[in-house]
């Protein structure tokens, strides 16, 4: 692996992957005037470079037939990690059978250059591909900026509105913020936990935004009742209860009824005092007749009311509030949402404190933008890679420990610098179970046993495994501590293993 740079400081990096030194030399010669060139001799090295440099690499020039891991193996890795959407690949090969070219394109290469390549074509294809990807990246960031601005002013308008209601109510604006954050946390957890419930990031954003409007109907409640210093009489309470239907009524007079935001806001206003057993108001809806949005906001509303001080009561502690909700002291709620509340209860106080001040972050906007793009079949995952890869790189680069991570599909073992040194192996080992070099270090039986153990282990639980390994022909005891990586959702599948080891 090497790096050649005849260009300036901010030149784009191109990774040339080819087993022939002569080929790398020719391609480097054609491109080095304007790009910084990184070189890898085979697919495994290419993966190491992709992990090390991440999205700093602007383009990959990829040979097809190579030892250790071929070009298709690299493409498979790039696809599995969704790098192919951010880093374009130009494949170069002497293979000109349509089946190879078709396969390459199907696996996501941007261009296919047949040999003999010429200097002009190489240069033009590189320029065009980079231009296209740069344009796409620019567009994406432009759109996310616009969405961010738009959402920011939308949210601000909604906040202002709901604050007016709150102020009249003698409450601080914190209530609105808390409900928004609680609603979002609950919805996120529901989406994570229940695959059968279809909640997109956009839905969650919308419902959370609308949650701020849940009490706007209170502007129709007279001051003396709204701000009465003490408990309400039954008659007064009946008037107070009209606020939910009143909120819905007010919104029903708006012209844009087809908007999802208005629909959600109306549901939430009208039904956030309904209860799962039908004992709520104003309509006495039961079970899932109550829209999920309103069900979630009602729990958030109750939680925040309990933990806030009122003229007629002191604030309950977080623990007490959760306990009261779970015990049904504030009415009956959907058991599914209660389960989610239990799951996230421990982290709630901290999350509320952290999130109340910054509930619309650029990261969130990026998520929504990405989702929008994905739905339109233009998937972009720059953020996902850059964050994930950067963290991973940092760990591998700085750790003094022997770390490894193994992905199942494609089957690739990656180890930290330290680990590679201990094992005197490469940093990237494709197909470890059939890799002759790696089999000299660890037996296939041990690999299989370890994988089997990890497979049946719960997430967040460590597996400890000791086995004999061979380093430069010498027997050593190796202590491995690792845990499973899984897909999210109910039928979570093992996707890999992450861990560390030491050798004694």
């Amino acid at each position: 692996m090497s790096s050649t740079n005849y260009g300036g400081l901010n030149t784009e990096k191109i990774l040339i992957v080819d087993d022939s030194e002569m080929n790398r030399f020719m391609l480097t010669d054609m491109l080095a005037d304007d790009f910084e060139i990184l070189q890898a001799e085979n697919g495994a090295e290419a993966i190491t470079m992709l992990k090390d440099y991440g999205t700093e690499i602007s383009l990959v020039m990829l040979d097809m037939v190579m030892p250790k891991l071929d070009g298709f193996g690299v493409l498979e890795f790039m696809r599995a990690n969704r790098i192919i959407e951010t880093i374009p690949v130009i494949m170069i090969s002497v293979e000109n059978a349509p089946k190879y070219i078709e396969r390459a394109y199907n696996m996501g290469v941007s261009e296919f250059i047949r040999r003999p390549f010429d200097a002009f074509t190489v240069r033009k294809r590189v320029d065009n591909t980079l231009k296209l990807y740069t344009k796409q990246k620019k567009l994406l960031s432009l759109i996310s900026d616009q969405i961010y601005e738009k959402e920011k002013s939308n949210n601000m308008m909604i906040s202002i509105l709901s604050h007016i209601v709150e102020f009249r109510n003698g409450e601080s604006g914190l209530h609105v913020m808390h409900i928004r954050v609680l609603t979002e946390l609950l919805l996120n957890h529901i989406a994570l936990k229940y695959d059968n419930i279809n909640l997109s990031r956009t839905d969650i954003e919308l419902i959370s935004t609308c949650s701020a409007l849940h009490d706007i109907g209170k502007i129709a409640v007279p001051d003396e009742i709204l701000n009465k210093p003490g408990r309400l009489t039954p008659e007064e309470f009946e008037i107070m209860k009209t606020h939910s239907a009143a909120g819905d009524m007010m919104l029903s007079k708006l012209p844009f009824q087809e908007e999802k935001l208005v629909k959600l806001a109306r549901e939430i206003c009208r039904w956030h005092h309904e209860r799962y057993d039908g004992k709520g108001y104003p309509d006495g809806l039961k079970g899932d007749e109550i829209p999920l949005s309103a069900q979630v906001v009602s729990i958030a509303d109750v939680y925040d009311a309990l933990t806030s001080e009122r003229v007629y009561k002191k604030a309950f502690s977080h623990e007490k509030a959760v306990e009261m909700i779970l015990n049904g002291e504030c009415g009956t709620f959907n058991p599914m949402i209660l389960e989610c509340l239990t799951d996230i209860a421990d982290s709630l106080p901290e999350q509320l404190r952290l999130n109340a001040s910054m509930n619309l972050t650029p990261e969130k906007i990026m998520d929504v933008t990405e989702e929008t793009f994905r739905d339109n079949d233009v998937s972009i995952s720059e953020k996902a890679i850059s964050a994930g890869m950067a963290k991973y790189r940092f760990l591998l680069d700085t750790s003094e420990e022997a770390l490894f991570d193994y992905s199942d599909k494609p089957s690739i073992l990656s180890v930290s610098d330290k680990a590679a040194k201990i094992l005197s192996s490469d940093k990237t080992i494709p197909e470890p179970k059939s890799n002759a070099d790696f089999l000299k270090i660890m037996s296939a039986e041990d690999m299989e046993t370890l994988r089997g153990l990890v497979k049946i282990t719960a997430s967040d639980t460590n597996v400890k495994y000791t086995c004999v390994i061979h380093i430069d022909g010498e027997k050593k005891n190796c202590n491995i501590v690792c845990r499973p990586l899984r897909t999210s959702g109910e039928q979570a599948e093992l996707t890999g293993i992450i861990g560390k080891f030491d050798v004694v």
Partner: protein
Amino acid sequence: MNLKDYYDKIGGDYDGVVSRLLSDERVKKYVIRFPEDKTFELLGASLGARDYAEAFRAAHTLKGLSLNLGFGALYSAVYEITEALRPQKEADGLDEMLAKVKEAYELTVSYIKDID
């Protein structure tokens, strides 16, 4: 001898390579480096070790290189052995094919030092 004479001597395609690589200088730069490339040695060694997967990769690489550099005679010889090795197992006539590659390779390399 000049670059065109060299290509004529080794049964190569001078016009093709110059049109692809755009200048005599660039072609020369690449050709002069060609003897340093170890792919040919790798082909011989891996065939000797009966490692047919490695031999296929080496042949394949050499085929691409010779095609790109316009080494016509070498390309024809390597093309034959690459296809024979594609199944990545022993095949009839590999020794003869390797001999042909060797002959073409040596011819190609032997005149490089005479290019001015």
